[in-house]
């Protein structure tokens, strides 16, 4: 006797717990792998899942078995030309044909354990332990988020929203109101009827019949009152209310003067992109403003920002001026969380320093959530670096600077800038 059971609808992911435990146990290795991946990846596919590889020896489960060496005998199939007593050179790799196939199920890459994590897990690992400083300072109205609230009772609505208690109550009230007079009259007549005592005279008999007739008419009329009428129906009224949703704007500021090579720009691009991804995890709605500058600043689209070549000197204050301008025009600080990231090789026109200082301390830093500056390339800190170091003393909470030498530094520097700070 066999039973055939359809288990296809049973829950899947029976292994989820075990998988989570594995990820938890090897968190450190996975994070390293993620961090390597971040450095190697194109920015476009930064958001995909990732195949993670961990050295097999790190996750091996040790078991006792024989090691290499000693004398061993193995029977193999498929003899073609060997005869008893033949001596052959030992095949490459020594144990290559030992027959007890070493994890041959996974084919090549035998030293690495490779598996896939999803996109969200990838970002999770990427931004683990990072936090946006001052994130909750302002959370104001966005526009695309609504919630429904109870807002009293309405005469119109759809049947599923009908408020039964209110409907029945209103129906009863109507019936009482409309039938009141008649019911009172009927009560009176009934009293009169009860007053007749047998035997009755002929006139009394007639009167009684009249009264009985009248009661009957009244009863009929009362019964004709509808139990429920259209204008008794009451509906719950729901109103759409916009829900506060945090929104952020991110300013990317980059120097595009002659001294900025494409390499440096690529490094900057990585940084901007990481920041964008990170903001995206925290805010539902993000706008990005690209501002580039040489001696003059302009707001441009992304393509132009990263790939258009410009030459000329460097006046940083032009860009800062522009940032401040855009903030005041389009992103009122009381409604927006403002983040800014500036990337530059650090060059600045000496006479501009003072203006920059003023702009930063008066027009920008007081309004932004967090301002990060990375200086790329060069072994020596440049003018801008010195200037910003000075400013940083007064704006420890929302101003961070760091120096980056090459691609590989980006992710560590990013982590450093956004490390969770306990003492906040």
């Amino acid at each position, binding site marked *: 006797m066999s039973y055939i*059971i359809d288990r296809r609808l049973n829950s899947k992911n029976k292994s989820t717990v075990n998988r989570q435990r594995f990820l938890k146990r090897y968190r450190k290795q996975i994070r390293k792998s993620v961090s390597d991946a971040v450095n190697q990846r194109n920015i476009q596919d930064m958001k995909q899942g990732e195949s993670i590889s961990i050295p097999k020896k790190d996750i091996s489960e040790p078991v006792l078995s024989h090691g290499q060496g000693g004398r061993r005998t193995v029977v193999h199939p498929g003899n073609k030309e060997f005869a*008893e007593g033949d001596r052959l050179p030992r095949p490459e790799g020594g144990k290559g044909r030992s027959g007890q196939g070493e994890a041959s199920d996974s084919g090549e890459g035998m030293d690495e354990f490779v*598996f896939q994590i999803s996109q969200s897990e990838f970002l999770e690992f990427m931004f683990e332990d990072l936090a946006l400083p001052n994130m909750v300072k302002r959370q104001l109205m966005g526009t695309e988020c609504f919630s429904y609230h109870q807002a009293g009772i309405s005469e119109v609505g759809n049947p599923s929203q009908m408020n039964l208690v209110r409907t029945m109550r209103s129906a009863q009230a109507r019936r009482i109101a409309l039938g009141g007079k008649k019911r009172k009259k009927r009560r009176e007549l009934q009293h009169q009827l009860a007053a007749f005592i047998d035997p009755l005279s002929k006139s009394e008999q007639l009167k009684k019949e009249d009264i009985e007739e009248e009661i009957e008419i009244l009863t009929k009329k009362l019964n004709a009152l509808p139990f429920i009428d259209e204008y008794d129906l009451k509906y719950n009224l729901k109103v759409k209310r916009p829900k506060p949703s945090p929104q952020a704007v991110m300013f990317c500021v980059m120097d595009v003067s002659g001294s900025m090579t494409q390499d440096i720009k690529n490094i900057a691009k990585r940084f901007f992109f990481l920041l964008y991804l990170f903001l995206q995890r925290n805010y539902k709605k993000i706008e990005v403003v690209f501002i580039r500058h040489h001696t003059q600043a302009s707001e441009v689209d992304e393509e132009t920002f990263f790939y258009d070549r410009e030459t000329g000197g460097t006046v940083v204050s032009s860009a800062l001026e522009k940032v401040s301008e855009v903030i005041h025009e389009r992103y009122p600080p009381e409604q927006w969380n403002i983040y800014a990231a500036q990337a530059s090789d650090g060059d600045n026109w000496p006479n501009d320093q003072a203006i920059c200082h003023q702009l930063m301390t008066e027009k920008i830093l007081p309004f932004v959530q967090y301002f990060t500056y990375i200086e790329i390339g060069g072994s020596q800190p440049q003018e801008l670096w010195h200037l910003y170091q000075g400013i940083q003393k007064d704006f420890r909470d929302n101003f961070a600077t760091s120096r980056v030498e090459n691609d590989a530094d980006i992710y560590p520097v990013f982590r450093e800038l956004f490390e969770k700070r306990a003492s906040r």
Partner: protein
Amino acid sequence: MINPKQQREPLSTQSEWTFELLETYDREIGRIAKEKFKLDTYPNQIEVIRSDQMMDAYSSVGMPINYNHWSFGKSFLSTEKNYQRGRMGLAYEIVINSNPCISYLMEENTMTMQALVIAHACYGHNSFFKGNYLFKTWTDADGIIDYLQFARTYIAKCEERYGFEEVEKLLDSCHALSNYGVDRYKRPNPISAEKEQKRQQEREAYIQQHINDIWRTIPKQKQDESCVEEVRFPPQLEENILYFIEKNAPHLAAWQREIVRIVRKISQYFYPQKQTQVMNEGWATFWHYTLLHEMYDEGLVTDGFMLEFLTSHTSVVAQPDFDSDYYSGINPYALGFAMMQDIRRICENPTDEDKEWFPDIAGSDWLETLHNAMENYRDESFILQFLSPKLIREFHLFLVEDDDESETIGIEAIHNKRGYQRVREYLSQQYNLGYREPNIQVYNVDIRGDRRLTLQHQMHDRKPLNDDTGEVIKHLHRLWEYTVVLDSVDEEGVTKQSFRCS
């Protein structure tokens, strides 16, 4: 009995399966298996699942329920990865040695494949589980599912109470030693979940007392040092290391002992499967082949069905040569199937050679002989008894000796008259777990001194232990909590290698 000449309508002509068709096929296959070939089986419970569920089943060693552990997550991840890359197809089936015998069918399979799996798993493996002596004595098909349920609940409770890190560490250590958690020779009591649960509490209290007894180290009276005979504990070598730990480790808490026990019980449950790979797969493959052919003879299946079935069957029993890229040892399906077929041939059409080599089975009733072989052998003895010269020739088997003291490797024997016997002996030895796995036993505990635990590895053919050994000893140390020493001793009793963790 149905007259083979009497042709019936094919059961189906489409490749799509339905539940009604599964039932019909199962009924027909079951009928032939039982009436014609006397296959005695547990009742079948056939479960249809999706491929992702199959992966889940894979990664918890094929069991429908199991406790949680990261290593199962690891195996799930690698299964998933390989599957997505198309590197491996999932097995068509998983079958569990339980009563009723649970088999999984994947929904993606065609009707032909489902029929093949039903014949293979539900009647082949199933009858093997029920008939083979190893399974009969070592496993309890009635109790296993309940036991796993018990284990899962118990371990989950421990995780709640003592923290999952603690439990995980303990399981890691037990898993490292799980190959040494089996009784190889002693007959165990079959496990039964109910009894297990009842006895568990009693055991907790009792064991704790018992252990304290061993560790009562204060001597009753002073004796002359020289005349104290060195007493070894345990008095005999103990092969079941986990058992020894469970009963004797000084500081394990009762729940920890219970978990050690769970791991070793489950390991014991799988032990017969490890010893009967060739036979088990050979038997199941032989029967799906025979049963489906029988159906064809009765006209129950179409030519198209047979073509699809044979394509799949052929790839299952393919044996790549040693120099092929696909070679990874001898394919148990190939060897097992060939041997089962060969036994039938020897019974039905023996040659002179067969009569010389197998005087007692040549010409006998093949069905009886085959049942007898299935019931009373394991891989090692099965090969030693039944591998015929004809098969050695067909497989072109040859014996290679690889000695690290020699520059070259030598061909010791090939498929010729002088070689048959040796090839057969050595191939049989290859399936002897006692030979394949290092022979390690508990040798002594210094109960009067520093409680050092000494294990002994009896070396064979100078084969050393692998690089994991140090790690495994660390795990053992975690359980024992005092110094652990593992000595590799060669045939002359000289210690060649020593591992220590203190």
